[in-house]
């Protein structure tokens, strides 16, 4: 299957990209607004196309633990869900992080808390980038802002997950999952037949048995393991920061926004510049690792930073840490499934400027 241009929903793009990336298995449970992913996969019959296993689990809890089992075999496995389902998966995610297994999770987020709304939201930021489950760990978190990135980040997510033996998450939202855009899909990759040395594939006489576990009763040894994880996360912070700057060169004011809000803020930058305000946008593409240095560098050159997000103010905390007092940092956002308009973002910025 060759490189191909299609018009697709973000959710469908994830599904098709997974097949083309040579994924070995998908385990999921339906939840709005991302059920198209498992529907697409069931209809596409990837077992016939590539041998990829697709299974509808009895719960998100079972789905993430199927991912654990598959990942322990060294396979490229994934699951997708939306906020309430992702909360249920936190148990599995901390075990997967603790057992150092690679896998991909997609969160097509919706507003909470609780059952909340089925409309898009970015209120799962803390849960995604700070750990989510118990214990000291991080996911690698990618934030797509287009259907194209929904597709591209599937392969990138798998690559990073295997490079660092760490779960990777695509943190999307209901807007990007549901909207249709043109998307370039990569050519079909073959599923890998090689197994990592640590995978449980059956103990052969030439090696010791492989044990996938996160259990260590001796606190001395557990601390050594935890420090190894800390080193890994620092390595990820050093190597894997991804971000995009939009009209930042001469900017006096800076928006920081990811995903859907970055799309909104891109328009806000244009509107503000039409009104003579020199505004730029920094869009974090990786949320963990967070683009700390790029934000800190820009902070020395601007008068004001506005973090725009569809949460009650979560990413803004990381922006403040990155800015470290170099410039005033403000928050503007809409919550509960509402999306800010480009105009209201600009109005908010203008109000803050008059208060400077």
């Amino acid at each position: 299957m060759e490189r191909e241009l299609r018009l697709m929903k973000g959710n469908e793009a994830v599904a098709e990209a997974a097949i083309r990336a040579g994924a070995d298995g998908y385990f999921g449970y339906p939840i709005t607004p991302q059920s198209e992913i498992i529907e697409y996969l069931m209809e596409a019959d990837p077992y016939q196309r590539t041998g990829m296993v697709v299974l509808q689990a009895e719960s998100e809890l079972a789905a993430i633990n199927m991912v654990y089992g598959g990942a322990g075999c060294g396979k490229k496995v994934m699951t997708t869900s939306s906020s309430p389902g992702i909360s249920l998966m936190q148990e599995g995610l901390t075990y997967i992080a603790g057992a150092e297994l690679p896998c991909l999770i997609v969160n097509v987020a919706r507003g909470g808390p609780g059952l909340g709304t089925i409309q898009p939201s970015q209120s799962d930021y803390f849960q995604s980038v700070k750990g989510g489950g118990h214990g000291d760990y991080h996911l690698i978190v990618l934030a797509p802002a287009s259907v194209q990135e929904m597709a591209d980040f599937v392969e990138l997510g798998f690559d990073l997950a295997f490079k660092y033996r760490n779960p990777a998450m695509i943190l999307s939202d209901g807007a990007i999952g549901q909207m249709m855009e043109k998307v370039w899909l990569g050519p079909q990759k073959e599923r890998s037949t090689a197994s990592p040395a640590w995978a449980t594939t059956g103990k052969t006489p030439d090696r010791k048995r492989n044990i996938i576990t996160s259990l260590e009763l001796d606190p001395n040894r557990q601390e050594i393991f935890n420090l190894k994880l800390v080193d890994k996360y620092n390595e990820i912070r050093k190597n894997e920061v991804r971000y995009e700057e939009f009209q930042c060169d001469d900017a006096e004011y800076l928006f920081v926004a990811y995903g859907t809000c970055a799309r909104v803020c891109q328009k806000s930058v244009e509107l503000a510049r039409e009104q003579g305000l020199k505004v730029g946008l920094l869009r974090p593409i990786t949320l963990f690792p967070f683009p700390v240095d790029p934000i800190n560098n820009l902070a020395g050159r601007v008068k004001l930073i506005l973090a725009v997000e569809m949460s009650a103010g979560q990413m803004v905390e990381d922006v403040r840490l990155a800015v470290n007092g170099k410039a005033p940092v403000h928050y503007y956002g809409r919550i509960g499934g509402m999306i800010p308009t480009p105009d209201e973002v600009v109005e908010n910025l203008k109000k803050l400027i008059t208060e400077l």
Partner: protein
Amino acid sequence: MKEVTGLKEIIKPENLAYRKSNILTDEIMHYCPGCGHSTTHRILAEIIEEEGLQQDSIGVSPVGCSVFLYNYIDIDWQEAAHGRAPALATAIKRLLPEKFVFTYQGDGDLAAIGTAETIHTCNRGENILIIFINNGIYGMTGGQMAPTTLPGMKSSTSPFGRDVKSMGNPLKMTDLVATLPGTYYVTRQSVHTPANVKKTKKAIRKAVQYQKLNRGTCFIEVVSNCPSGWKMTPTQANKWMEENMFPFYPLGDLKIPSEEPDLNSKTGKND
């Protein structure tokens, strides 16, 4: 240490009453004296060795007393979260269908926190073996009431005995999964006498062979004891188990293949 004279002459293959399976590691088992786990581990290891399955076995260990099972049997292992072993095993078997995949779970793991995973794995007919050790108590955490604790039975969270009116009734998971179309072979055994050990070993061997046929889930309950949790000596515990557990959890097959399939498999000599 004083050399035992003539030891080598005494140990001749024809005089050997018991040989430790090569699949069992030299790790000292952490189990309490008289516990059924170590016996069940031993026969499981023997089956894996006798059937030549070391290279093809992937086990999933639980949370509970047998959490360190992966230290004792020399095959590849995954350690699951509490109750989730059947979900792991589902994916392992689907991604590596040629392997022998099994879970080994206690009653708290399988019949309380993992009830949904157990039922749905059996209902999908995942082609795996589930070994279910039922001793009617949470052993590792110190003897709390389990879903399988008998009516009136004392535990640290039912100190005056299980009152079914307020604490609910014991759950017969094996009876429950036997009704599901996805299960192929369901049996309840024990390992407290040599005769019962032989029967359990035979059941495990059957399940290993059935898995090659790809006909559904095999489910083996081993009704077992917990001398420490029950606060009894091993002998008392076995007697109490016979008198109290077996009437409630009767031993025997609950579901067998309608026609015994042609297995064409080599059989071990220790049955």
